[in-house]
């Protein structure tokens, strides 16, 4: 219940964060809200020797209207996403989903960047930003680069971020189709999703249907080919590889994916 010993460093600027990370090498991890990392460290599943606290980098917490897209600072807290008037107007899917992460205390600390960089397929926001065709901006020792969300999640808790790279911004194009829905299925309100479905227009992404968050390619192809929502949703589990675990069997997850996708498409259509 107590983390293994580590050294704490606080970054005052983004440059300092990168320098500290470079110095720590493989022994270092960034600490944002800490609500993905610290729980792992308390159970000693993660034992980084150096923690680089980037939580005070206020310059990375923002939600900005950039015209064709919305720019969100990586350190924006779930709470702030949930209550952002801009997101309510332009990206209600994200605002709504952020309000479903964890519980109110977790949302006061957890950040969108932290959640995405953690790369947990069972988390809500990775699938949501995938459904929204987000692009991530990463800053590293060799400079800044953009990574499409579709290229970002490479494996179970693995992302395209290089060692020492810091996620700084999430860019989300303003959706052409306004209908949206977020269906998060849990036993208790506070649980991680057994299965989740995020829909923006005809873009559909799945929570916890494999080792990475994924777009429901079968559903999207069907919709593009003119299929109705029910027929399209029947293909929700195509290309997925849901685990069997304490939460659910593979078969049940596949079934839920279909049911939730049907409901999500119907709800999105009603919001068009």
């Amino acid at each position, binding site marked *: *219940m107590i983390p293994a010993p580590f050294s704490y460093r606080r970054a005052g600027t983004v440059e300092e964060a990168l320098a500290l990370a470079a110095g720590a090498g493989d022994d270092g991890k960034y600490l944002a809200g800490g609500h993905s990392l610290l729980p792992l460290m308390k159970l000693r599943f993660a034992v980084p020797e150096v923690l680089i606290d980037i939580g005070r980098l206020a310059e990375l917490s923002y939600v900005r209207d950039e015209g064709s897209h919305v720019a969100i600072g990586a350190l924006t807290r779930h709470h702030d996403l949930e209550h952002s008037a801009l997101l309510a107007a332009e990206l209600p899917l994200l605002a709504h989903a952020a309000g479903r992460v964890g519980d109110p205390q977790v949302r006061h600390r957890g950040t969108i960047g932290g959640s995405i960089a953690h790369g947990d397929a069972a988390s809500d926001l990775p699938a949501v930003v995938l459904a929204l065709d987000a692009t991530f901006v990463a800053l590293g020792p060799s400079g800044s680069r953009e990574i499409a969300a579709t290229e970002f999640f490479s494996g179970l808790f693995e992302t395209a971020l290089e060692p020492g790279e810091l996620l700084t911004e999430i860019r989300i194009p303003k959706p052409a189709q306004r209908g949206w829905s977020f269906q998060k299925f849990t036993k*208790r309100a*506070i649980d991680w999703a057994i299965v989740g479905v995020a829909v923006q227009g005809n873009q559909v992404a799945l929570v916890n249907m494999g080792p990475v968050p994924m777009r429901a390619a079968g559903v999207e192809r069907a919709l593009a080919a003119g299929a109705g929502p029910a027929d399209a949703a029947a293909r929700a589990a195509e290309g997925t590889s849901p685990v069997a675990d304490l939460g659910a069997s593979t078969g049940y997850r596949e*079934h839920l994916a279909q*049911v939730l996708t049907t409901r999500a498409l119907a709800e999105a259509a009603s919001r068009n």
Partner: protein
Amino acid sequence: MSIMGTRVLRTEDPRLLTDGGVYTDDLRLPELAGAAHVTFVRSPIAHARITGIDTSGAAGQPGVVAVLTAADLPAPPEGGDPTTEPLLAGDRVRYVGEPVALVLTEGRYQGEDAAELVSVDYDPLPAVPAIEASLTGETLLFPGTDNNVLGAGTAGEGDDASFDGCDVVIERTVVNQRLAPVPLEPRALAAAWTGDRLTIWSSTQNPQLARGAIAGAVGLDPALIRVIAPDVGGGFGAKVAVDRDAIAVAWAARHTGHAVRWIESRSENLVGMVHGRGQRQTYKIGGTRDGRVLAYRLDVVQDCGAFNRLGAFLAQLTVLMAAGVYDLAHAGASFRAVATNTTPIAAYRGAGRPEAAAAIERAIDDFAAEIGMDPAEVRRINVVPPDKFPFTTATGATYDTGDYAAGLERVLSAAGYPALRAEQARRRKSGDTVQVGLGMSVYVEITAGDMGGETARVVVDAAGAATVFTGSSAHGQGHHTAWAMLVEDELGIPMDQITVVHGDTDAIPEAIGTFGSRSLQLGGTAVVQAAGEVKDQARRLAAEMIEAAEADLKLNTASGTWQVRGDPATALGWGQIAQRAGPDGLAADARFDASAPTFPFGAHLAVVEVDTETGKARLVRHVTVDDAGRILNPVLAEGQRHGGIAQGVAQALLEEVRYDVDGNPLTSTLVDYAAITAPELPSFELVASETPTSINPLGAKGIGEAGTIGSTPAVLNAVIDAVSHLGVRHIDMPATPERVWAAISEARAGR
């Protein structure tokens, strides 16, 4: 006007709401300054021989005071019972989480660091992870036996012949799943030496029993041990006395001469604290098509876990209460209690009685579905009628008082049952995705069944204030408020002049403590009796002081004064009389031993909505009668009912301890063990009902566990009822969304 039966807010609250109380890990006493922190090394494997323990890696770490293993314990006696549980595992571990070693460190945080460095060599043995594996006998867990059965018993009669003459006989094997008690405060204990006396602070429900257990285990005269229960953050039966981990900590203090303190983590608690329930039940119910149940049989296999701490006893209670509220021509039950390589099972809210109610209430609904009769009607036909009390069941329980049919009617009426059935019918007709299910239970349970009695001492001092020393040991129940009410009612001393003391073996050397919903009926009665003796002493003294005959005196409880009847000028206050009694004031001890247990009863109706596409059930309404005789303080009684209901609902819908095939726990954090939270529950609808008992002068039965016993079967029945029109006849607990969906799918496929 008497304070009895009125709504009185708790005197316990101010401390708890402002400085948050003092639980064991909050203690900052001088005696504990510099106490070593204790961290356990626990078995990561369900069944193995220990072939070596190397403590050297840990012993050298910063801040390590000592590393203790079974080798430091006195050797167990030759020829002892091999099923006896050791303090620390010696040559064998039998469950994941079993304590193997203790590390004492100066600093709290150093404990886990050092414990990680204790190196234990395990030679794995085949694990017996569950009842089925245990029954095969393929792996025998204890030497000198040819099976894994640690206890067995039977009651009543329910052989096959009993079922002759039944139009309908149903047999079904169901699960009453293993649960974790999850008190919010995990186990904790601190110990310090004052000269040759060991003072122990323990998060326990029974300080006096704890003292006895510790004294025996560590080889100290009980007179040299003082046990104090500080504030205790919940118990639910799982903190009865002390368990081996707590005793091991006390022993560490004895062995090293050092003050120690220990609090476990939640992960440790979920595998190290006792679990509850854990039965495989086979019921057989038979009757006629007009709704009469003629015969019922229940066969229980109780999972004891690795040792028989309480498994056999719990199953015995299930057998005792197997017949429930029904007047049956034939009823019988049996149990076998078996060992497995899992956490030991002991008392958890209801302790054997929820299992009995769950089985027969499921069976009744099963029978009702088979004959196509409303389950409420089947119950009406078969419950013990009010004129048959006291009623002795076929399995040997004698119920004192009850009115089961009335309880059912009140609940159905409060719920608006016909309208609910109409809504159900409407949704079935239109094939709504979300269906409504109605489930009920009519239950009876046994409280104060231990027959151990309880103690009290009441003292009135020169200032006219009273102190009550109670053997009961509250951990949230509000005894201080309740006992003060009793004394105010008896003596006329206002509550704010009454102090209640509990939980200290120096102040209260002899007592049993709190479990089994015994405290008001036994502890409360002892308080009333002690107060009554104080009253008698006071009457004698007042008579002397006023120079009047005792028969002419009366106690004016409204003003708390003694006087000659009709002559207020003679009034004397309690303080004056206490002064007359001497420097120690007025004092009396009492011990109340009830002649028999009492049998609270009730009825629950649950309304659930089930999403038939996902299988998810939502409890929408829960209406109850929980009749525990005369209610002293409705505020406290309602609170006990609410808490009990919530834990019972949790069993029906959400909670389950699970192990994999190798005996590895799968639910060892609160992420995986689905302890119920606020959004999963509605506000409850409680109906008042008081059917007093004559077993004690308060007319009181125990209410602490009743809500749990009644709610589980009502909610499970409701979930099954919601999808019975689709062909579902049973779903095992917890009725998770996947289980419900699977049942629907199977039923549909079967058509």
